[in-house]
């Protein structure tokens, strides 16, 4: 019999690290968000005042907070379906018995996932350069006028979304691929005998069987996309006209450029609450279409 004491000795180092460097700071953030911690408090802690929900109240009256929220929501609302669609499409192609050289394609499609965001953002900034970029050159061949991709407030966010989809779709592709491979082949066999078309097989077998995978991938992707930061930091610096300032970008600026750590903590907490609410909503909605026995509707 092993003793509980030795178990705790094995656990202690990891728990101490997680406690000191994660749980404690999260609690700290809650407290910090209720204070006016700023440059003066940083210099001398006696300047610190407790202001209750003041930071939250102020943020809700700041246009920049709402526009940062709007940009982030735009990124999530457009980016997540595109990203999941690309992942599922690629997984279906790779899963097809007709596909050749599967390991090769799989590796190539996954490669962008392991690259460093900053480095590939630098590449994309060059590809989408207004004057010498490959994107505008190719469009020019089709007779389309050059687009100021990262310099036009209307185009900056779509360009960042394209970049994010390119960078991330391979991750979910692998998970979808595993989900597809877990579907029993005799289901398709039976459907074929009944004369179901490829589309009907996809609609009535693949999609329902993939639903749990879909929900999990959806939750992971949504929470990942809510954390938009490095892309605008490198590609646009939040511009043009602050059109790519995301919530985390605002938190970073507020906290580490202007040293308003109290207000920045409030931004972080509002983002957390929003992400939590959206996740709960997704789980609820996915359950609604089900029969009580848990099967698909």
């Amino acid at each position, binding site marked *: *019999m*092993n003793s*509980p004491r*030795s*178990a705790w000795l*094995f656990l202690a*180092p990891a728990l101490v*690290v997680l406690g000191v*460097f*994660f749980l404690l*700071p*999260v609690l*700290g*953030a809650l407290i*910090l968000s209720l204070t006016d911690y700023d440059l003066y408090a940083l210099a001398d802690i006696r300047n610190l005042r407790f202001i209750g929900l003041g930071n939250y109240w102020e943020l809700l009256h700041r246009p920049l907070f709402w526009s940062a929220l709007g940009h982030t929501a735009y990124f999530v609302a457009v980016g997540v379906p595109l990203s999941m669609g690309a992942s599922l499409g*690629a997984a279906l*192609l790779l899963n*097809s018995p*007709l*596909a050749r050289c599967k390991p090769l*394609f799989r*590796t*190539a499609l*996954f*490669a*962008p996932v*392991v*690259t*460093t*965001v*900053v*480095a*590939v953002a*630098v*590449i*994309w*900034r*060059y*590809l989408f350069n207004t004057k*010498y970029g*490959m994107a505008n*050159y190719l469009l020019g061949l089709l007779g389309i006028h050059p687009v100021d991709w990262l310099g036009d407030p209307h185009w900056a966010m779509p360009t960042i979304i394209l970049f994010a989809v390119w960078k991330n779709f391979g991750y979910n592709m*692998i*998970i979808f691929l*595993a989900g597809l491979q877990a579907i029993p082949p005799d289901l398709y066999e039976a459907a074929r005998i009944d004369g179901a078309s490829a589309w009907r097989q996809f609609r009535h077998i693949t999609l329902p069987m993939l639903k749990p995978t879909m929900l*999990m991938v959806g939750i992971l992707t949504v929470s990942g996309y809510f*954390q938009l*930061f*490095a892309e605008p*930091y*490198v590609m646009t*610096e939040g511009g043009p006209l602050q059109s790519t300032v995301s919530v985390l970008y605002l938190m*970073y600026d507020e*906290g580490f450029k202007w040293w308003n*750590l109290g207000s920045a*903590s409030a931004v*972080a907490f509002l*983002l*957390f609450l929003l992400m939590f609410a959206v*996740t709960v909503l997704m789980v609820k909605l996915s359950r609604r279409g089900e029969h009580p026995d848990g099967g698909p509707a």
Partner: protein
Amino acid sequence: MSPRLMKALINGLLIGGTVVALFPLLWMLSVSFMAPGEASALPPPLLPKHPGWANYRELFVRAGMGRYLLNSVLVAGAITALSLVLNLMAGYAFAKLRFAGRERLFQALLGALVIPAQVAMLPLFLLLKYVGLVNSYAGVVAPAMATVFGIFLVRQYARGIPDELLEAARIDGAGEWRIFVQIVLPLLKPIIVTLAIFSFLAAWNDFMWPLIVLTGQEHYTLPIGLASLAREHAQDSELMMAGSVVTVLPVLLLFLSLQRYYLQGLLLGSVKG
């Protein structure tokens, strides 16, 4: 649609997708060997006229990229080594050792996954400032020394170890530490490799936290160094592409050589249970 046409369509789409996925990376490599200014031309040149190492020389001699590279290797190496030890110990304890409240504690840890890491960053910065660890390697390494994901991964895998094996060793009088090192670790080898790649890639690619905690250039990791270079040298496409190659190539090679383990871990980590 005839099967032949279908086959051509599917493989055609896969080839198209592969071109889209790889083109930016291949072009980055090509442009990095061009002479200064060569890439700013129409039509955009696909291959360098006279390939040379000038951009890389410039990066390492003048822009301090060697230092950033060394910093990245040190930081990512330290995070990988330390987090392996801590996560393996904790994951094994959650899987195989008995203590009161084990399941509840584990559920609580999993629950903490819903909190985005950025919430902790502001107080963490203050904490490290008061203990004097801002702008140090330790400031980057310490918070990454244990991860819930890593503990989860090890626990999933370690549950497959038969209890009889551990009990037999205990009856033979082996201590818990000795059992862990001599029996458990060799059995966990595949997941150790997986976790090592995950930790190294995550540490190497991390951007926001090092950006916050590293204030002086001498401690910059590659992503931070590259981002600051990109702000100064926005127009030097060739130089920036070389910088991107230096940043991306190590992790791409690591992934290519060990992708079996990486993909396996991704699937193990994505299925909760």
